[in-house]
């Protein structure tokens, strides 16, 4: 057992846990943040994607000891109370959600794309989502959702016009 500090969705957690536990298990089993999903356990499907210091990562491939002191963003950290994040609204508007199991990881990967580049091309969006698999919706509506969100975010901040 080891004492670790995680800052998850801006909340500081002081944990005593085995450092070799997967970040995914600590988030789900210990912090009860079950919005992060497990699909393949080997970094192929992206359902467990979280942001570590702003960068997307498969939390099934990260040991919690590796992220001591890091800022983690999970799907639960995106909305502001009942106020949905622009990406969450865009996924609803574009019909980009069916079974919903890939959705949290998909939205976090999309956030990483937009945080880095507020006005990405379709190719850049697809590249940014290439680590996330969806089996129901197909990718077009998901890409549409990200474009929609990019446009709305740009309009809000007054930077660029989206596409």
């Amino acid at each position, binding site marked *: 057992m080891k004492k670790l500090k995680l800052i998850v969705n801006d909340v500081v957690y002081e944990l005593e846990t085995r450092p070799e536990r997967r970040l995914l298990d600590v988030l*789900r*089993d210990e912090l*009860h*943040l*079950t*919005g*992060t*999903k*497990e*699909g*393949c*356990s*080997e970094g192929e*499907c992206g*359902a467990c994607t979280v942001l570590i210091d702003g960068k997307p990562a498969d939390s099934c491939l990260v040991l919690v000891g590796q992220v001591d002191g890091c800022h983690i963003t*999970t*799907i*639960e950290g*995106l*909305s502001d109370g009942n106020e*949905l994040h622009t990406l*969450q609204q865009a*996924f*609803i508007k574009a019909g980009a*959600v*069916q*079974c*919903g*199991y*890939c*959705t*949290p990881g998909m*939205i976090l990967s999309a956030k990483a794309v937009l945080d880095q580049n507020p006005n990405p091309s379709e190719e850049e969006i697809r590249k940014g989502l290439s680590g996330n*698999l*969806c*089996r*129901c919706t197909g990718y077009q509506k998901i890409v549409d959702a990200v474009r929609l969100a990019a446009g709305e975010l740009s309009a809000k901040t007054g930077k660029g016009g989206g596409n």
Partner: protein
Amino acid sequence: MSEFSIVGKRAERKDVRSKVLGKALYAGDLYRPGMLHGKALRSEYPHARIISIDTSRAEKLPGVHAVMTHKDIPGINRFGLAILDQPVLADDKVRRMGDAVALVAAETVEIAEEAIRLIKVEYEELPAYFTVEAALAEDALPIHEGGNLLQHTKLRKGNVEEGFAQSDIIVENVYQTQRVDHAYIEPETSVAELDHEGNLTVWSSTQYPFRDRRQIAPVVNMPSNKVRVIQMTTGGAFGGKDDITTEIQAALLAVKTGRPVKVVWSRQESMVCSTKRHPMKIFIKTGATRDGMLMAMEGKIYSDKGAYCSIGHFITKKAGLHLSGPYHIPHIKVDTYAVYTNNTICGPYRGFGILQASFAHESQMDLLAEKLGMSPLEIRLKNALKVGLSNATGQVFEHSVGFYETLKRAEEYMKTHPLEGGVE
């Protein structure tokens, strides 16, 4: 065009908000007080007799609450959507890689996995059959008591000899399709719990709670009214969660331990143990007149069921009923054979056998068009089923068939929207 209240309008899924927030509850998101974790030991051989199972070392492992084999099942040791042909835990023999042989419930997944490794099973290997030809060979051992041919279905309409005699051109081919996994992103998951009044609840990632209950109750030896199955938000299924997956394993362990038990299949277990789309070998002969009118079709379909039925005899039969496609053919003769093999089980998968048949009949249409020097669209328009015509089983459509109009609309659309790169 008339105005509909829903059709053609934008609608928001009622569960979409909870899904984008990450709040939708899937079976794996349930954490019950005192919950244990269940794991299954899987067979190492595709076809083998079980000589002995030694669970003594697993039982002694600290943190293990139950180790179960077929001897510990309170009720019947069989389940199946249509035919009770699948053991919950292998008794006399295993019929495929991945048959469950023993179950463990433990404090953690890691302990359960360790206990599984400590179980010793002695097998006597039997010859295994991986193709329908091998399984149907005269000297093949029966995989099930009734033999390896599960079902033969005959479809007859008109007189095919006559139909071929009236044909100017005949195209004959063999088409083969492959086994496909549904690969839903959420693996199979169930949580089961007995309450203080002895009611069993199973929360599951499933498609049919009532069919699940019908199969769980006799295995745990409880009346149906004491068993409740709740479908949680389900992370994709596409037919793959039609059959029992984790439900009975979780239920058995919960009844045995008196504690809530969660069973989640690993992605590998999902690949090896869940049902797949049936690979089919389709022999098809299609005859048409010089001007492209279909006259006769004769087919034989062999479907690889894998080790258990699921509802594969229906799926195989359905592939045969649809081998003529959405076309009117006056003379039809189709034989379908659903065959047990020692492969992974095949069951429902979007399309229910029709997809395999479509590959064959649409390929035949393209080949006929090519040989007749006709466009692929024209031959389809000429033969499209319409009101007043009968399908392969002789049913006459009385009200509407949208196929012809759909083709015409597609034609119009394609005239104004050329495909990128063109069409060859």
